């Protein structure tokens, strides 16, 4: 039953809402209390109070109160809506959707609930639900263009391209005024429709639409690119060539444009001279273009390669461009090119030897050539570390203060396996240019490779924001510095600090959660901004965000670490049964000690946090800032993570993402097998093994794992094992 309030309290209730929206939580609570004093069982007020408490970080009380509110007023859409919001904030999206749907049933006209539901549906990729919601929203407010566009997006994401296009067309037809040519939303909507037409496969119509409807679109570059691509696809070569040329005039550094032009001109890909002529044309037209000069090195062979490489290399070395090696090393997969480049660099050095003094800047000319050769011999396809060191030493002699030279010297030490010297040398490079964060980052990385975590953090601290509470690590975590967290975790792992290693890998996992969550606001923001193509790109990228190497590396590290922990636990468990007592006994004792320490530290941290909170002056601006948003970490050192009794279970959090998002990565499949076989999930282990075998049948671990699995199921005769045995047998006989 909807509960009614007196006028005074109804007004008070509105102020509760306003205070909540303005984030004036204390005032909001005060007003809520006032209402509850007179009407202690007023469900809506209880819900609002719960919502405010939740914002203050009192999650459990908030949930309890919201539930209680529902029991006193089951028929209130506010109670259900709040319940949904609580779930949504704690990322239980399924429950949140359920609650929103209840709320909507009670209050079908509420735009707000409908919108909250819709956003959640697209966030969890419930596209069918999203189509329904957007349809309802369109029906409620058909005069808003956003609502039409949004429904089209919903249809497109759901895979109904025809409907998507129809919706956009229907709206266009309903327009009474011709939009201004500067209307961003209109311009983007037209281009968006064009991408849908193309996605439907009808390139001819897409081109026609582009040339008629989109000719005035504000994103001219996009129009030009789409047109060139369509013309190419439609084999309208002459026009395509012209279109690609226009693009090259805008940006002669984009390889796709050259490729398009060459295709349009119908040049045979083996006709080196004709290809070269195109690039030469642009190199002459745009003398500063790097692409026009460098791309021909990819296809040229023999003497024409040598001539082109010589002119490229000479120019770069004369100018002292430090990236010239990075720009050429991909050619090293061809032996002839590798050798030719080496010969050219040596020749250059010989010719210029002795002219060092003349030119003044030692990073150019001879210095550049020495530097190039050092990198050449340091590269894995042409490695001779002794020679590399020789050249870099000569370069340093020429210019003792050159950061790049020292950086390369550190890399050579790294490849020699001497992490200590590598770290020391990189730090020397850093000291030569203390204002450059790049070299600072490299110094920290090399310190981590040498297991100097503390020192590395200090180095990083030279560039992190001093005012961040929690110091450099907190800043790096806030700023999502993935490489540091990964390298730091790996170093801790090497040092045997399981807790901190797991902590870092978990932090990376959590940052990916944040990145996924980051989409949330854009579901409505992008509709208002009207940049629909960019939004759809973003959605598609977010769909597979955890395939990113940043995620994979940390996740694989974590899985391997959990496997290690499991093995150690097994060993110590066996130990109590009589084998190798000495070490295992120690292990068990140590574990006990570690657990005790974890408890103590957690208590201490809690105490300290409480004290700190108590000391904070609520009126001080600085204190206020971090009070709410920053949740305190109850396991800063990962001791709780390390104290797990079920490492394989914990590994699953990472492993499922690895297998779902990076199935083509053999390392992931191999780790998957290792986890599943230990969990006695033989069918799943078999699935990983099959996948790994398909990726690389010669991989040594694949063969070992076959034997392992066979042995594991040999003596078992349950249904699962029988199935596995059958498959294995079939594999062997084939």
């Amino acid at each position, binding site marked *: 039953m909807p509960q009614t309030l007196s006028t005074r309290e109804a007004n008070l209730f509105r102020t509760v809402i306003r205070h909540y929206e303005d984030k004036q939580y204390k005032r909001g609570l005060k007003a809520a209390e006032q209402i509850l004093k007179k009407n202690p069982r007023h469900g809506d007020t209880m819900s609002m109070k719960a919502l405010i408490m939740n914002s203050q970080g009192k999650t459990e009380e908030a949930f309890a109160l919201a539930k209680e509110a529902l029991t006193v007023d089951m028929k209130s859409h506010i109670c259900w809506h709040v319940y949904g919001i609580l779930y949504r904030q704690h990322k239980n999206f399924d429950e949140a959707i359920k609650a929103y749907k209840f709320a909507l049933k009670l209050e079908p006209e509420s735009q707000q609930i409908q919108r909250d539901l819709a956003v959640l549906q697209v966030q969890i990729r419930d596209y069918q639900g999203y189509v329904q919601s957007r349809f309802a929203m369109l029906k409620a407010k058909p005069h808003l263009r956003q609502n039409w566009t949004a429904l089209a997006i919903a249809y497109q994401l759901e895979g109904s391209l025809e409907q998507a296009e129809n919706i956009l067309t229907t709206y266009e037809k309903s327009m009474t005024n011709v939009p201004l*040519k500067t209307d961003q939303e209109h311009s983007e909507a037209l281009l968006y429709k064009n991408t849908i037409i193309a996605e439907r496969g009808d390139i001819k119509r897409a081109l026609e639409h582009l040339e008629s409807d989109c000719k005035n679109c504000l994103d001219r570059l996009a129009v030009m690119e789409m047109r060139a691509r369509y013309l190419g696809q439609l084999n309208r070569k002459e026009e395509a060539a012209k279109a690609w040329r*226009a693009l090259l005039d805008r940006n002669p*550094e984009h390889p796709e444009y050259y490729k398009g032009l060459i295709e349009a001109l119908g040049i045979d890909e083996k006709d080196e001279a004709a290809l070269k002529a195109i690039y030469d044309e642009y190199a002459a037209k745009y003398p500063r273009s*790097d692409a026009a000069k460098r791309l021909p090195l990819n296809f040229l062979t023999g003497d024409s390669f040598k001539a082109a490489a010589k002119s490229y290399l000479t120019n770069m070395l004369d100018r002292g461009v430090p990236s010239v090696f990075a720009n050429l090393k991909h050619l090293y997969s061809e032996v002839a090119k590798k050798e030719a480049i080496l010969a050219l660099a040596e020749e250059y050095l010989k010719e210029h030897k002795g002219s060092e003094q003349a030119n003044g800047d030692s990073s150019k000319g001879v210095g550049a050539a020495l530097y190039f050769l050092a990198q050449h011999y340091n590269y894995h396809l042409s490695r001779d570390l002794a020679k590399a060191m020789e050249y870099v030493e000569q370069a340093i002699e020429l210019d003792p203060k050159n950061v790049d030279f020292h950086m390369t010297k550190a890399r050579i030490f790294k490849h020699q396996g001497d992490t200590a010297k590598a770290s020391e040398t990189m730090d020397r490079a850093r000291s030569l240019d203390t204002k450059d964060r790049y*070299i600072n980052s490299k110094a920290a990385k090399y310190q981590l490779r040498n297991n100097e975590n503390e020192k590395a953090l200090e180095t990083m601290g030279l560039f992190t924001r001093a005012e961040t509470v929690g110091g450099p690590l907190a800043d790096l975590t806030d700023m999502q510095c993935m490489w540091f967290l990964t390298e730091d975790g790996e170093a801790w792992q090497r040092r045997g600090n399981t807790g901190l290693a797991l902590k870092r890998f978990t932090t990376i996992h959590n940052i990916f959660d944040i990145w996924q969550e980051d989409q949330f606001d854009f579901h409505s923001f992008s509709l208002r901004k009207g940049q629909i193509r960019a939004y759809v790109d973003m959605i598609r990228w977010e769909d597979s965000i955890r395939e990113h190497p940043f995620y994979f590396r940390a996740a694989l590290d974590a899985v391997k670490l959990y496997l290690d922990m499991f093995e150690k636990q097994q060993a110590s468990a066996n130990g109590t049964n009589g084998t190798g007592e000495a070490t295992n006994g120690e292990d068990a004792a140590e574990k006990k000690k570690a657990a005790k320490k974890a408890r103590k530290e957690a208590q201490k941290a809690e105490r300290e946090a409480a004290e700190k909170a108590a000391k904070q002056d609520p009126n001080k601006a600085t204190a206020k800032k971090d009070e709410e948003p920053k949740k305190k970490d109850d396991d800063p050192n990962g001791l709780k993570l390390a104290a797990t009794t079920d490492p394989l279970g914990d590994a699953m959090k990472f492993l499922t993402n690895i297998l779902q998002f990076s199935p083509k990565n053999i390392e992931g499949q191999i780790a998957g097998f290792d986890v599943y076989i230990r969990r006695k999930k033989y069918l799943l282990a078999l699935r990983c093994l099959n996948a790994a075998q398909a990726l690389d049948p010669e991989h040594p671990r694949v063969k070992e794992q076959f034997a392992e699995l066979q042995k594991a199921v040999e003596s078992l005769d349950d249904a699962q094992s029988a199935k596995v045995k059958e498959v294995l047998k079939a594999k062997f006989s084939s």
Partner: protein
Amino acid sequence: MDIRVLRPSDIPLIQHANIENLPENYFLKYYLYHALSWPQLSYVAVDVSRPAKSAYDYPKIVGYVLAKMEEEPTDGVQHGHITSLSVMRTHRRLGIAEKLMRQSQALLISLGRDETEQAMVETFGAHYVSLHVRVSNAAAIHLYRDTLGFKTEKTEAKYYADGEDAYCMKLDLAPIREALLAEQLDGKDGDKKKQIEEGKGTEGVDEGEAVGDVGRDPEADSKKEDKTVKVKVGRGLGVGGEEEEEEEEEEEER
């Protein structure tokens, strides 16, 4: 090197390049905010010569320019702003920063450009582009002032978190705008464009070393990007607004 417009999937590695190179850093969401508000303005330089390391390789970003339109310009004049620009040390002296800037500038104008009615040009397109640079960053200042034609507007004391001052620089886009318009009118694509491409750039000029930090917005000073990412969602009934939770400052204690 491939110089092209930014894609959302580039963002983790743009963020990586930023935090590797510069002291002014941002959450991923701030990059998304740029990419989804003005997708045409930001550019990346990609190392195309690097062989793929796995089936899930992402193009290695060696330089980027992150640009935006000022949403509420204090002077009332539509203009662009360079939020951040950097090039990896390993790829310096290739002229990448300049190339990135030139692409972005051309787009800043054309984003709001009307093809025929010149009056409209004035109502939407960017009239100038602004940026901040550390007073000690000689290489970057050289690029902006000498190569690209920026003028120093004023010095902002203690703009950076570490206490360093910033030059606030501006580039008037009118000449470029006129050239683009002229090109439009006589339909000759190449010549004018070339003039724009090369007009101010002296042959062979490099940004030299350490082209670095065009840092945070001043208002982001204490709160990082929070203020700008604020995503307003008009709310009727009270039980909303949770999305802004992270973005807004808490005021209850005032």
